[in-house]
């Protein structure tokens, strides 16, 4: 028994010992007690605008590329004081610090006095254990030209059902006729007999069947041209959840014309570049998706500069909310004059990774809202119409009363 026990221990010990070199290779002092995840967060929030993970020279941005080699060159203590306040370290006459200062054309690294020593250690731990790099292949900024609608399968099923039942019925008749010619009492006659004897049930079933067909048919017909829940793939996997939700960027920052124009406006790439000139990596897709913007505008991440003479490539977004051309819709009308929030028509956009069409966008949907929406009588625009306002009882005045249901207000 004891031999058995010691043998097991031996095995375990052997197994453990064989692993030790691997472990010790991967985790130096920092891993223990330091939170790589927190380090990653801090790194991405504070460091990415100047540093990139990788070879010191090759991955150089404004500052050097960061990799585990730094721990061979610099001590932990030195690194902490450099990161927290590099200029102080330079002033103190530290040789290593002055060497870096000179190497980078005397540009000073931003000081981070708010970091605790543990924060810096977390970051260092993250640099120690860089994530496996994703291969970033920049795809063509385009998607397939034709997308099947969801209504499709349903209508096809319906057609198939009808065809099948017709086929079944025809086969049945054919067989019956065949048999009728041979035997005196055929199945057909038997069926007829059965039908006649159970007339009530048959009639009920027939009625239900017809009713089902009508309802199904009507439903499928009324869905033609409506693309509710339409969620096409976009050329760039842009996430509203990250930007509008997590980062809390105001809708109007990107869709700046929503308050001025009929179009809400898709931001031009230069608006993206306001932030993404520095933010080169996203939380979800890493550099892969952001690189597509760079490809469009011709931005070299390594040198942080625009490539001269680059032939720009427009980003072809897929339009989700499509009103027919015959309907005039104006964003500024609804956002400014109507005081609507974006979410009232577009749904909780800040929770969508991939945007889809929340509402039906049918005329009935528009009209219903116009019936219910009160008009803003405080707007000086409506001052001086006291008779009219009184006639309609102030509280009841909706968009309908100012012609919101008239054809010519949206169709011209």
């Amino acid at each position, binding site marked *: 028994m004891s031999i058995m026990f010691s043998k097991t221990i031996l095995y375990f010990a052997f197994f453990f010992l064989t692993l030790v070199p691997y472990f010790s290779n991967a985790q130096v002092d920092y891993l223990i007690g330091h939170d790589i995840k927190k380090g990653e967060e801090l790194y991405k929030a504070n460091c990415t605008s100047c540093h990139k993970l990788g070879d010191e020279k090759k991955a150089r941005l404004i500052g050097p590329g960061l990799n585990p080699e730094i721990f061979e060159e610099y001590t932990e203590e030195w690194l902490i004081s450099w990161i927290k306040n590099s200029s102080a370290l330079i002033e103190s006459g530290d040789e290593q610090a002055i060497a870096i200062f000179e190497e980078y054309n005397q540009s000073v690294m931003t000081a981070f006095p708010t970091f605790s020593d543990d924060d810096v250690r977390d970051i260092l731990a993250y640099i120690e254990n860089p994530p496996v790099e994703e291969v970033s292949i920049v795809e063509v900024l385009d998607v397939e030209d034709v997308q099947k609608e969801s209504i499709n399968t349903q209508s096809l099923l319906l057609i198939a059902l009808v065809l099948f039942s017709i086929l079944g019925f025809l086969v049945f008749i054919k067989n019956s006729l065949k048999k009728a010619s041979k035997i005196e009492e055929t199945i057909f006659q038997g069926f007829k007999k059965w039908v006649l004897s159970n007339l009530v049930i048959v009639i009920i079933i027939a009625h239900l069947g017809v009713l089902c067909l009508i309802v199904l048919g009507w439903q499928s017909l009324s869905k033609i041209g409506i693309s509710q829940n339409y969620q096409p793939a976009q050329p760039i996997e842009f996430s509203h959840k990250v930007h509008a939700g997590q980062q809390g960027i105001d809708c109007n920052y990107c869709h700046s014309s929503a308050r*001025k124009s009929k179009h809400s406006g898709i931001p031009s790439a230069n608006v993206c570049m306001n932030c993404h000139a520095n933010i080169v990596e996203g939380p979800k897709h890493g550099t892969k998706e952001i690189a597509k913007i760079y490809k469009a505008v011709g931005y070299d991440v390594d040198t942080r500069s625009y490539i001269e003479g680059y032939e*720009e490539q427009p980003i072809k977004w897929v339009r989700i909310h499509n009103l027919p*051309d015959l309907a005039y819709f104006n964003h500024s009308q609804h956002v400014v004059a109507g005081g609507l929030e974006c979410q009232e028509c577009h749904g909780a956009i800040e929770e969508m990774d991939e945007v889809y069409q929340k509402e039906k966008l049918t005329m009935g949907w528009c009209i219903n809202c116009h019936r219910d929406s009160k008009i803003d009588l405080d707007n000086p625009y*409506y001052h001086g119409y006291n008779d009219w306002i009184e006639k309609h009882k102030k509280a009841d005045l909706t968009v309908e009363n100012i012609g919101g249901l*008239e054809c010519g*207000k949206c*169709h011209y």
Partner: protein
Amino acid sequence: MKEQKKYFKSPYLKGNEDFLHKEFSDKLPVDHFLADQKENNYGTSRRDFLKFLGFSTAAAVLSSCESPIQKSVPYLNQPEEIIPGVANFYASTYYQENTFASILVKTREGRPISVSANKDYEKITSHSGGLNSRAYASVLSLYDSNRLKSPLKNNNEVSWDELDNEVIKSLNQISKTKNKIVYLSPTIISPSHKKILESFQKKYNNLEVVYYDPISKSAIIEANKSCFGESFIPTYNFDKAKVVVSFEADFLGDWLDASHGRKYSSRRNPGTNMSKHYQFESLLTLTGSNSDKRVPVNPDEQLKYLMYIFSKLSMTKQEVVIENLNHKAILDNICKELQENQGESLVISGSSDPQNQIIVNAINYLLDNYSKTIDYNNKSNLYSGVNSIFKRFLDDVEANKVGALIINDLNIIYNVPQLRDKLNNIKLKVQITDSKNETSKYMDFVCPKSHFLESWGDANPYTAIYAIQQPTINPLFNSRESEQILLKWSGYEESYYNYLKTFYKNMSFKKSWNKILHDGYCEIDYKRNDYIFSSKVAKDITKNYNPSQSNKNDTFLVLYSKISMGQGYQSNNPWLQELPDPVTKVTWDNYLTINPVHAKKLGLKNWHVSNGALNGDVVLIKMGEKSIKAPVYIQPGQKQNVLGLCFGYGRTEAGKVASGVGVNAFEIHDNFNLVQKNNFSITKVEGVEHEFACTQNSHTMMGRSIVKETTLNEYLKNPKSGNEDFKLESYKGKVSPSELNLYQEWEPSVHFWNMSIDLSKCHGCGACVIACHAENNVPVVGKEEVRKNRDMHWLRIDRYYSSDMTKDLAEEKGIGAIEMYKMMEEPASEENLEVVFQPVMCQHCNQAPCENVCPVAATTHSNEGLNQMTYNRCIGTRYCMNNCPYKVRRFNWFNYKDNDNFDFNMNDDLGKMVLNPDVTVRARGVMEKCSMCIQNIQKTKLDAKRERRKVRDGEVSIACETACDTGAIVFGDALDSNSRISKEKKHPRTYALLEELNTQPSVFYKTKVRNKNKINKNV
């Protein structure tokens, strides 16, 4: 025996009665659009039908399974000033065909979609003028598919570098010879262009600049040279003139300046200050139509009449015999009025004879009109072409003295056809032009010139005005400005933009360069000195007076230009081609106009064919060796023995729109004289008939008060004169139609959009029609369709002639009703004819006959008083069109876009760029009509709501109102008690069209008031 009575729609129908028996003499022409024209068998067999059915079902099934993906492609770098969906406006300058205008260009997402008048410019004192229909249409010429896309060498495309090198090389060679280098151009009003020409001249010192204006005003320049010792054209202040006497000068049409209409109409408000306008003319012009007294005279008599006035005013003893006693009385009256209004009168002449212009100058001088109604210090630079200089150039070409010819922006072979064979003498021929034309094929090099909306430029149209032209779009093709080309050839590498900027920075104006660019113009002070009329010339007037012997058989051919076509520069513009002539209402044509009596004498006829369209005889006009064939149009009111033919047509290489339309009057522009006398013959061409496309085929009002009219005297006594309340007989006695109402009363809520049209101010020029086209994507349908009355104009201008027969007269003379109506159809005789114009668009009836009959509620009434048309609801029953008493609804018989049978601007991608993105392009089978520019109403309301304020009066820009230079159209909210429209609505002159029908229109008219003594009730 029962007599079959016949009623004719028009006098021309009489005699052609086969239409009575067959309404559709021809097959309905739908096959033309359905089947291949080459095949004779148009029929569709049963099997074809099944094939189509099968195919279309399959196609429908397939296409419904998959819906196409729509892409949204945003800017990569959005220009700061552009917000997608919001229009930008830029001030710029229009100068073409000697017409200047300060304009505002509307662009959407970087493409110009319309031009309108620069409203700031209108406020300035020294000069203010608007746009004519050609200026409004010029935006479409930017998208002309016939524009040159690249430089050409011997009609093959080359690069600019190659062209530059070769031209400079040849110019250098030629400058070493004795031969001249001639720069031939229409009048240049750009100071920077002239400056560049100077440096060009320095480089090639044998360069000569020759100005040639196709329709020159040489006579005025020459007359001023002899009277005042300086060659110039003054500016005319019609706004300061109480009495205007015009001899053959169509100043509301195409004479000298587009700004006259505005100034003239500012004195046409009925009241004690209203001007009085006499017009002596041979043809029936737009100006004559609007005059208070129009006197038809032949062109020869002008000298005599002017001399009569001159001798009366100057009290010389020169005996002038006026045979026509009526005219003598009128002239005596004019002399009296002129003398009473010294310094407040204006006498002008359109004659191309300097002698006539000298007498006109003398009369104005005697009347002390200079520096009052005629400003000779603020000169007009729009016409500098002098015939004698151009003739010298022609002689030089003949004598082989011209080594190189650079033609700037002229179509010289079209304008001066005799030059065609002489061009071979010239070694280097270069043309700078925006589109390929008749001249191009004779050229060694053709340089594409940027359209003015793509170009930098400047202008100094009048002494007091400098204006800047700025590009509103990048050049669509590989083109340059003329100035840029010259800069390059003079050895400058600088861009013209920089040159221009430096030029203006050195000009030391009060305004900065940026301010001038923003405003579009700059007004400067100018020297005011008095010119003294040369006493020698004054003495010579009587001495030189030598009236030509008049003979009863004298025939005259008067060449004129009409407001829509001008000199033919923009003839490939389908909007202009389809704009009816203001007086004849003929589209897509020019023709020989002739007096009815004269026509009868010559056996020439106009008649209507079974579908109501007008056909006419064709004549051969022979002048020396030249001869052209032109159709004859019978024009009431025109002087007998005078024929008229207009310029601008007969282009052969203008492009898909204009080629082959009409005849070229420049062919017989003999000796650059607008009046040809006895040197031609006309003979009827047998067996040929011409098809006209008229938008109006009945000419009189048949005793109804469609256009209400009164005289100034009557009006001053009683402001409601001519506009008496209409009463209907009823069981309640005589009541106004609104009291006999079948409808429910309708009430507006927040706005009530109304429009008022002052018939005293409307000249009928047609600028509003073009502005409406641009704003509302109105399609062009072509001549064939106009002939079938299928024109799509949302706004038309009706023209009515007066008739000699009236109801009163018939009663007096005991003429029966049938006879009376028959006589009423006949326009009045030449001396008595009066013309009225009336713009008619959808009247937006508040009790609309069209709304009741629509089975699908596609046309409905808005709570703001507008009659709305919903295209996607319309199923095309055309009930509304039939029930509309104003006939303003237009039906889309075909798809006018992407249809090779309607090969106009909407059939090519370039031409479609002019479309207004806020207005639907209507599909086949739906009705359309004036929407009162609802897109602009909605926009203005939204602007007000967003800015939390009320809509300002005059803020809504309605295309026709904005375009109307004379201010005849007023639009606004009648619920706003301070608005202009609510004042107009209460005006005693205001009336509703066809008020007996009680349609209660939102559009109303104001009585026309003529400044004359006696009322002519039968207009």
